[in-house]
């Protein structure tokens, strides 16, 4: 009986310790990489979301981007530590209901954690995740590379199958030109153009 009591109190103590220990690193491990906007209130997180209105356009135009394995990987990296932690901590909170309000009550309903800027060969990737407790309720890309993995794959595919000649574009100050082909010139840009010089020389 004494042994059983000891075992129960021991279990309760360890689970409480688990909750206390896990709940804190949950925010700090992800947030420590970005010191400034880390654990902000619900009000602040909405202002932080505002700048995303601009990149959102880019995200919308290239909806398949995050799906490509390479560009999505950094995002998954930042999200996975907290996702993995979500399992044990929620398990632990279920058992001792008394322990939960003491740790969870001061926390806002949904936290927004901004991940670090991760550079890869295609450019920078930054992901923000929204957490309800330990559960990820939303993830968004704040920054995605101009040149995505997909477009690069496509261009390398093109290069592999391409039958023409490829190299860097060169500048030539060629004399003896009769005319110049170029993108539609306006009257103003024509004045500065090589074609105008050719026309004047005659």
């Amino acid at each position, binding site marked *: 009986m004494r042994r059983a009591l000891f075992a129960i109190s021991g279990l309760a103590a360890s689970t409480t310790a688990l909750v206390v220990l896990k709940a804190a690193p949950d925010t700090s491990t992800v947030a420590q990489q970005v010191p400034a906007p880390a654990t902000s209130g619900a009000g602040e997180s909405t202002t932080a979301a505002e700048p995303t209105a601009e990149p959102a356009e880019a995200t919308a*135009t290239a909806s398949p981007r995050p799906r490509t394995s390479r560009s999505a990987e950094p995002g998954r990296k930042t999200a996975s530590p907290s996702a993995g932690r979500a399992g044990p901590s929620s398990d632990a909170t279920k058992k001792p209901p008394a322990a939960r309000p003491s740790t969870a009550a001061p926390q806002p309903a949904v936290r927004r954690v901004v991940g670090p800027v991760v550079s890869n060969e295609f450019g920078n990737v930054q992901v923000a995740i929204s957490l309800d407790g330990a559960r990820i309720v939303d993830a968004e890309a704040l920054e995605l590379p101009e040149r995505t993995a997909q*477009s690069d794959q*496509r*261009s390398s*595919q*093109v290069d592999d*199958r*391409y*039958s*023409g*000649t*490829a*190299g*860097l*574009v*060169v*500048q*030539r*100050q*060629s004399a*003896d*030109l*009769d*005319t*110049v*082909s*170029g*993108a*539609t*010139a*306006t*009257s103003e*840009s*024509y004045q*500065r*153009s*090589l*074609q*105008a*010089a*050719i*026309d004047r020389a*005659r």
Partner: protein
Amino acid sequence: MSAASSIRPGLRRVEHVMGTPVSLDIADDRPATELATLADEVFAWLREVDARFSTYQPDSEVCRFDRGELLLSEASADLRRVMERCADLWDATDGFFDAYATGGLDPSGYVKGWAVQVASDRLRAAGADNHCLNAGGDVRVRGHSSTGLPWRIGVRHPWNPSAVCLVLSGTDLAVATSGVYERGHHVRDPRRGTPARGLRSVTVVGHDLGLADAYATAAVAMGVAGIGWLDRLPGYQHAVVTDDARCLHSTNLPLTD
């Protein structure tokens, strides 16, 4: 040759038509009055096309057709041919050449090249076998220049307006260039509705300037995928400059030094 080079035969004239400078060079050694008449006819035709196919003039044939006031069966043979070609181009470019991309009918992506092509065809029919007509960068050459050599056509360097990146040479060429450097990212990807990116300049070389111009515009709209599309395009050669300053071109492009 050295004495004659100062007094070259032929005629050169520049006029602003269709919102763009048009340069005509007729190299045939013919009486000045004949050459002047030929040039007058070329510019009169281009002005006529501008009036009939303009999307800015509400009483133009294109606008009346777009509003439904004119049936296709009542339209001129020219408009019917243009509409047919635009439909073919929509098909051939997998929808990337779209005369309805802006909402209403705007076939100008084909019309300018086509108008220059028709003008060149008429010059040849009138016996002016050696000429070069350039409408805002879309070029049709035939025969030889007044130096007696094939025409030399520079392709504008996409970052430097006073330099070229390639020089082409030929006696029967249509050369059309479409790019984003002149008016910003104005070519739109008709599928995403966003400005096209990836290709800074696309030049298409062949025999029909209307098609070459439309193909070049469609390839810009396709972005990087346009390179592979151009590579498989029968009868037309290409030169592409990407946003990251690579130049890719057909091996059989008529390049010269």
